[in-house]
């Protein structure tokens, strides 16, 4: 009798747990509903069509596009006939690896500095935000347009180090400034090299800096106060509070940096794809290229994810 009563009790107490789980999953669908609709009705069909293009042969007729099945022909051409693509991809990975690490470390360092109290912090934050705007979209496109103009303009004011340079908001002006002030070819070359790489790090770490900054600001003041009361040093506070609290964002930033650097318009592989994309007759090959490239990035992101996963502390 008593055993039966116990079993009944256990069953009763389990029931609400089940329904809570079901409720939980129901609300999970509700919250993610927009992206489910978007993926199901637009994105996945579009992706599928693009995949079909990469396996197809596109004929442009008066009626529009006609895609016929061509099997692995485009991939065959992309990998074995049009040489240079794989080499370009591997080379760009080699140059990107150190850059990714430097960008993350630099962004974390600068976010910590910008989170400290000092005079003119507001202005500094506004200035550090500027690379977010100037490293994407129309501005970088105008850059290339402008450098094309520069090529036409041989022997004008620009060679003498005037006000206009090749890039709209690039480092060329700074380069000119250095050569003008140093007046020494070897020395200025070294300085320009250093400034050049620093500038590219700065322009590609604006987003990461802001993400880290927002994360650092989200850490409760109480935690720091408690640590202070317990007598923790600044070093300990950094490694025991700031770092674990911000670690989920380190993964975001790492993955963002990988994707951003891989998809940047001045990336050699992207330029390679764009060259084929511009021509309507090679569109199939271009989409085969971009599918191969997508898989390469996917593998790379997966490796990064698995490597960094253990460092991260989640609250749940």
């Amino acid at each position: 009798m008593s055993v039966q009563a116990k079993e009944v009790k256990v069953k009763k107490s389990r029931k609400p747990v089940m329904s809570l789980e079901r409720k939980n999953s129901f609300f999970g669908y509700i919250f993610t509903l927009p992206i489910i609709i978007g993926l199901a009705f637009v994105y996945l069909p579009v992706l599928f069509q693009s995949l079909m293009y990469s396996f197809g042969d596109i004929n442009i007729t008066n009626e529009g596009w006609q895609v016929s099945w061509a099997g692995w022909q485009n991939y065959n051409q992309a990998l074995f006939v049009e040489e240079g693509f794989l080499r370009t991809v591997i080379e760009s990975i080699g140059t990107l690896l150190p850059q990714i690490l430097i960008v993350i470390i630099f962004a974390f360092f600068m976010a910590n500095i910008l989170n400290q109290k000092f005079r003119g912090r507001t202005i500094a934050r506004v200035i550090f935000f500027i690379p977010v705007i100037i490293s994407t979209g129309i501005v970088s496109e105008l850059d290339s347009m402008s450098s094309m103009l520069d090529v036409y303009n041989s022997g004008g004011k620009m060679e003498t180090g005037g006000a206009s340079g090749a890039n709209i908001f690039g480092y060329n002006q700074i380069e000119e400034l250095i050569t003008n002030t140093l007046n020494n070819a070897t020395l200025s070359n070294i300085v320009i090299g250093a400034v050049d790489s620093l500038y590219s790090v700065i322009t590609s770490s604006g987003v990461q800096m802001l993400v880290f900054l927002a994360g650092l600001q989200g850490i409760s003041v109480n935690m720091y106060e408690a640590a202070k009361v317990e007598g923790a040093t600044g070093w300990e506070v950094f490694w025991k509070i700031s770092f674990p609290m911000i670690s989920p964002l380190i993964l975001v930033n790492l993955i963002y940096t990988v994707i951003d650097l891989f998809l940047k318009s001045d990336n050699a592989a992207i330029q390679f794809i764009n060259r084929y994309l511009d021509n309507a007759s090679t569109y199939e090959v271009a989409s085969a290229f971009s599918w191969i490239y997508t898989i390469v990035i996917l593998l790379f992101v997966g490796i990064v994810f698995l490597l960094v996963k253990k460092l991260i502390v989640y609250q749940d």
Partner: protein
Amino acid sequence: MEENNVVTPNEVPVKEKKPNFFKKLWEKIKEKILSHSEEVMTWDRWKRKNLNLNGLGRFCWYIVRLVLIIGISFMILYPFLVKGIVSFMSTNDITDNTVMYLPREGSTYFIQKALTTMDYWSALLNTALLSLGVAILQLFVSTFVGYGFARFKFWGKNVLFLLVILMLIVPSQTIILPLYVNLNNFLGTGLSFIDTPFALLFLAITGLGLKNGLYIYMMRQFFRGMPKELEMSAYIDGAGHFRTFFSVMLPNASNMMITIFLFAFTWQWTDTTYNTMLMPNLNILTNTIMNVTVSSGDDVTQTQALLDTSSLLLILPLLIVFLFAQRYFIQSIERSGLVE
């Protein structure tokens, strides 16, 4: 010898005057230093606290930080400075080799020409409205979806999340053409979204907009990093999922939301991939800025100066927006100390 002894007492008052002046200066310096420290303290305490190795380290860090911030700020701002100067030059100043930084004649010729060729004011209004609409939609969708990914367990969640990551990874070159075809004939109804702002608004509301996968991912990571006790206490107090989300989670996520809003706003503002492909004839800044290269004729130097001016005009509103948003950044820091 004796005479010397007589002289010294006379010299003493003269000598005393000089230390007096320095002492006064020293006192003033001390006052200044003490007024800069956060707590009220005496000079002795300040000395004990700061004149040691720790204090030296702090001073060195202060200098390093100053140099870093000023140096990097200079690197970022210098090109802007040059462009700003160019936009105030006259046509003669630009071809004059002796003019480096300060325009000799100076005029607003390039600014005015840029304003008219870009159709600046109406294009600015359109761009601002479009960016605002898209950014707000993207912000709410990504906050919603990010929260769903962070705190709920449901069937197919991992696959769904992988698809979001895939959205980030697939180059826009891959999908832009099929996307155009689909939006030109929306769901097979013959309805065309091309050249209307609805194309972008639709993409934003379904979470497919520009870099939307990134925003979702950022929001998910942010919510996962937040203590679970916050929601638990809300549930115990009897709040439902939506109520908890809106009145407990959203206020705590405000700084992350402002960051995402800023990203969405600026990237929509400067975007070219979707804007030029899906709305090539709409009167927005990224489209009208292309008129500059077409309309200015053969003179390359002038085209260059006009490009400089118009790109500065394109970016200026964004900087102003960020200047204002900065206040909310600071507010949210102060709040986060109170809420928890």
